[in-house]
């Protein structure tokens, strides 16, 4: 495994130039950093540019101002050292679970047997042992998302990026997967950056929460979550932070929460 490096987002601004429309600013001078091995969440209302930010970190789009540095070097293009889990599991329907996970190793030069072993280990890690030969349509939503996590991890990336990975799951599955993700994060010892609009999820999992506002997307505040683990979602301290995050995200959310 690569030793996790420091991920720095420095003064990043991003504009979308849509023809015949005014220039749309989606990110305004955002800066924060992800310490090696940390768990950082980015929360905010939709349209605050949090997913855009993730795409930039992923290296899918290099048309932005500012710098995104990993190990002090500017990120250029996608790399296997940065894994990703999308909101839609994005497993290829024509590949079995193990082929899907193995797809992330296609571009890696290693003996086939070695790869197969790594794939098996990661399928076991996410608790899908016995489903190696299943096709995605035979998996439940939660299982498919676990498979996506396995695919994101199979290269032993130093950073795993998660783009609302549990957004489409039911509440119970979501809570279970959050606990599993935390467990995986402890075991793997890598950095994780989670984009979510589930504030509770962010508080439950993170060291640090980046709260963002929309129009244009900017950072409202960084909140350090200094709660003992395992975190009690019903505790006062937990709710305190929840209140703070919601108030940072804007009055409307607070009102709708009260109602």
């Amino acid at each position: 495994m690569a030793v996790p490096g420091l991920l720095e987002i420095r003064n990043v601004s991003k504009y979308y130039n849509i023809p015949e429309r005014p220039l749309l600013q989606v990110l305004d001078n955002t800066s924060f950093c992800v310490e090696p091995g940390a768990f950082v969440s980015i929360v905010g209302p939709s349209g605050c540019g949090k997913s855009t930010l993730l795409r930039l970190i992923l290296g899918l789009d290099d048309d932005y101002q500012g710098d995104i540095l990993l190990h002090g070097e500017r990120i250029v293009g996608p790399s296997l050292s940065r894994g990703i889990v999308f909101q839609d599991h994005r497993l290829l329907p024509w590949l079995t679970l193990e082929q899907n996970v193995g797809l992330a190793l296609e571009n890696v030069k290693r003996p086939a047997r070695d790869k197969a072993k790594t794939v098996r280990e990661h399928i076991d890690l996410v608790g899908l042992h016995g489903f190696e030969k299943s096709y995605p349509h035979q998996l439940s939503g939660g299982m498919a998302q676990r498979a996506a996590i396995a695919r994101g991890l199979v290269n032993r990336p130093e950073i795993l990026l998660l783009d609302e990975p549990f957004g489409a799951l039911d509440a119970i599955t979501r809570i279970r997967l959050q606990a599993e993700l935390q467990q995986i994060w402890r075991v793997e010892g890598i950095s994780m950056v989670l984009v979510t609009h589930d504030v509770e999820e962010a508080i439950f999992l993170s060291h640090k929460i980046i709260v963002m506002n929309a129009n244009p997307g900017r950072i409202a505040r960084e909140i350090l979550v200094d709660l003992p683990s395992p975190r009690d979602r019903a505790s006062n301290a937990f709710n305190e932070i929840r209140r703070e995050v919601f108030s940072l995200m804007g009055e409307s959310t607070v009102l709708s929460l009260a109602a």
Partner: protein
Amino acid sequence: MTVNTGTVVAGSAILDPSTNSAFNPSAAPAAATPTLTPISDTSAAKRPRNAKGFFRGGGYIGIILPILIIGLWHESANRGWVDAVFLPPPLEVVKESWLMLTEQDLLHDFWISISIVGQAFVYGSVLAISLGLVAGLSRKVELFFAPTLNTLRHIPSVAWLPLIVLWLGLGAPAKILVLAKSVFFPVFLNTLQAIRHVDKNYIELSRVLTLSRWKMVKRVILPAVLPSIAVSLRYSAGLAWALVVVAEGLSGLEGLGFLIFRAQGLLLTKQLLVCMIAIGMVGFVIDRGLYLLQRRVTRWKVAFEG
């Protein structure tokens, strides 16, 4: 007329991605997102094949209608509803087919037709899939070929035949070329459009996984477009088989098509019917075969089975 259907029905516009295999209802978008259904069985890879055997699972009801038709045919001949010159009784046709097999070398003509269609199908579809893939992967190639192909496509195969026969003579090559052309277009257009319909998210995924272009084609694009290609192959094989009859009727002195038109001219209705039935049955077999191929390449899909 059969000849036109190929170019018209399969003629979804080359540059219009919104039309997808309009000619075949079983065509499905290539990159359909699978529905997530909870799994109930861990040996999931051994998913029960939904393909029903021909006679198991109610398939036998398909045999009822042919029996009724033959019964009606028999009765109408028996009771003299129709003159035997226009509609000979079924038993006579069976006898005639035996005669044709034993004394007239029907199998020879049969193989002539099959071999023309087989070669045309292979040449046409190989070229169509290759060019379809290249054009699908490169917008430039597509734009280079689009105007030319879109014009050629609208000239029906039967209109090509006279010129091609002038060049290549009355033999098999002219027919193979014309049929290959009619196989080419549906397969080419479907390959191209299926590539245009590949989910962009999958392309993004292959970028994130740093797959090479070739790996992306092999692992992502090809599997995504195979179902559409299979459907178009099935369609165009049927089309070629229908067209060979016309082509042989128009030129040359052998093949089932030649026999049919000769039988008509000589008022040999029995022979005519023998040829028609043979054509129908071969068409059925071709379609079944390619249907099985189609099922094979779509086995990862959850389909509506009716």
